[in-house]
């Protein structure tokens, strides 16, 4: 079998695997769209491989890579059992990502991406896998795969971190990338210690750097003392995605961000080729919260207990004034970037997070205290129930407010099971909210 014959043979194998996927019960949506898109790509790829001469080594190598990409993708989809991730949350996530990821492709005018979801092992497997290169198989819709950590199946509070991942997804869409780069990243890059690689290197060695940084540079001078231009580009994409998460998911993003990133690096000072130190990201978010006016939000709350709870939250996640070394952006830079980001999101049709009022937040928190899934359900025993539409992000915020209260108690009792139960209550709340919205939308449709 020569390379060309093998590639055609492998196309058939990939098709057989795709058909095997249909043996399983999937309930993650878009199955038919995915199947059709995939078949279209396979057929197109075969039509490209068919006329290739065996001597055209570069074309064969390119197509081998394409077949391999399709094989990887179908395997991921085969594993996307709906029971391995919280689909009500996923549906809400899609509603945020879809308008943003609409794009003008060659064949179709504008289409939403096909979003598939699966679970992966590993505590930090949150990601959105992007199809960046549509050069060869640019025949239809882009396919995004969203990856949840399998073991955190019920942890919807932590899933607010997906706000960051949607940022990466938007970055892959050409019409947003230029706007994000020009209007969000550029203001961040125009001043400060990360303005250039040479300044960045000096910044690492500043005398006021945290002790963990100094120790790191002393212990691993070869690995850590240099910052390349590519590294800086990646870091700024991360900063942009953090702002993205904050603006789209609100306070629950702050809490999820801190919980997950500090678990990964308790010092908050490590960095890598793609990720800047957490301490800098946290300070940037602190400044963004200041700009959005969130630290003053609790003052407007009438209910005394809820106000105390919100004050505790703000203090824990965005209340501390920054140290000098990690404060790498000015308030003006952050304001410019956040405002531009909100503008881009609004124009794309993705809703930015707005802080809730008392009548919205208080019932959700009370429901959680009473071990009832938080949603817009009317619990008053009214003759005609008046269930409310509640933004799913408020449910997550309420969940984090209560989590922090229970966390303080758990420190005393040592009992940690509250967090799973709280997440399950919020997950159930999201499911029930979808039912409420679905019913109310249907009723409104009937009236019209």
């Amino acid at each position: 079998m020569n390379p060309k014959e093998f590639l055609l043979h492998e196309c058939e194998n990939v098709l057989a695997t795709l058909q095997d996927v249909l043996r399983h019960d999937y309930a993650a949506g878009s199955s038919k769209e995915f199947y059709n898109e995939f078949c279209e790509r396979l057929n197109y790829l075969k039509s490209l491989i068919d006329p290739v001469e065996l001597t055209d080594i570069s074309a064969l190598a390119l197509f081998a890579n394409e077949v391999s990409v399709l094989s990887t993708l179908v395997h991921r989809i085969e594993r996307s059992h709906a029971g391995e991730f919280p689909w009500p949350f996923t549906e809400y996530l899609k509603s945020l990502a879809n308008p943003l990821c609409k794009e003008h492709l060659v064949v179709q005018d504008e289409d939403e991406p096909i979003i598939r979801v699966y679970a992966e092992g590993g505590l930090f497997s949150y990601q959105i896998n992007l199809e960046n290169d549509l050069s060869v198989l640019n025949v239809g819709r882009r396919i995004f795969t969203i990856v949840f950590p399998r073991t955190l199946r019920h942890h919807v509070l932590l899933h607010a971190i997906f706000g960051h991942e949607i940022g990466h997804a938007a970055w892959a869409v050409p019409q947003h990338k230029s706007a994000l780069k020009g209007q969000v990243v550029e203001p961040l890059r125009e001043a400060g210690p990360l303005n250039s690689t040479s300044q960045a290197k000096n910044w690492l060695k500043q005398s006021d750097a945290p002790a963990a940084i100094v120790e790191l540079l002393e212990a691993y001078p070869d690995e850590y003392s240099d910052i390349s231009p590519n590294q800086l580009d990646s870091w700024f994409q991360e900063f942009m995605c953090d702002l993205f998460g904050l603006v789209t998911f609100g306070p629950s993003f702050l809490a999820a961000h801190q919980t997950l990133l500090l678990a990964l690096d308790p010092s908050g000072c490590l960095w890598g080729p793609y990720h800047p130190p957490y301490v800098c990201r946290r300070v940037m978010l602190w400044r963004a919260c200041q700009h959005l006016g969130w630290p003053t939000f609790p003052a407007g709350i009438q209910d005394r207990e809820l106000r105390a709870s919100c004050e505790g939250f703000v203090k824990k996640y965005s209340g501390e004034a920054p140290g000098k070394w990690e404060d790498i952006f000015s308030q003006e830079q952050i304001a410019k970037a956040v405002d531009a980001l909100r503008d881009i999101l609004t124009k794309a049709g993705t809703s930015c997070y707005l802080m809730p009022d008392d009548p919205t937040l208080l019932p959700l928190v009370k429901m959680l205290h009473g071990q009832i899934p938080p949603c817009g359900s009317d619990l008053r025993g009214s003759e005609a129930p008046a269930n409310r539409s509640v933004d799913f992000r408020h449910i997550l915020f309420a969940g984090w407010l209560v989590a922090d209260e229970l966390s303080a108690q758990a420190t005393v009792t040592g009992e940690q099971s509250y967090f799973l139960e709280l997440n399950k209550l919020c997950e159930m709340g999201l499911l029930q909210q979808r039912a409420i919205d679905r019913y109310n939308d249907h009723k409104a449709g009937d009236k019209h």
Partner: protein
Amino acid sequence: MSALVKSSILKHMADGKLVVSPILCARQRGASSIDLRVGNVFLMVRARGLSVVDPARFAHTDDKVGDYEYEQARRQKHERYEAPFGQNFLLHPGMLALVPTLEWIKLPANLQGIVTARSSWAREGLSIATASLIHPGYKGVITLELANLGQIPLSLYPGLRIAQIAFHTLTEDAAAKDMSSRFDMAFEPAEGNKAHGDEAFLPPKVKQP
């Protein structure tokens, strides 16, 4: 002990003692009951290689997490299926599936719940609750044991009203120590320990090689 009529049910809810959440429409409340909707998880009983209901496999484990026999016995006999709204689930003739309600229930210490089928579904051969008493103080979803006694598949969609719950007052409040159950705070169906308290009648546990 007497059954609550609608006005009493609403009063208990207004007082915050009784919770059935969410109730999507007024039609969901009958003269003396509240309709319950299908949730989105289906645990289908499947005859697989190691599926068996043998109380002896639960005996002497004391619900110990991580006990191999206990966990295997629990998990081998069910296949879990999750369906979003708008997607159906087929309950074939002779099939048994455990399904949670969409509603979250909280009962006070002086009320007991009785779950039964809605007559429109019962007429199609759907049997719903073989264990229909919900004890006072319970909180969580209710597990419906669905069996298709007819000859044709039944197509079920999450959100459909298929069961109903009525409430009976008790002669006095149940004691707090009697109200706890391993099914409390249930978010989805789980099977019970059929050996607990009856170990005297089961063979001693033999260590598997």
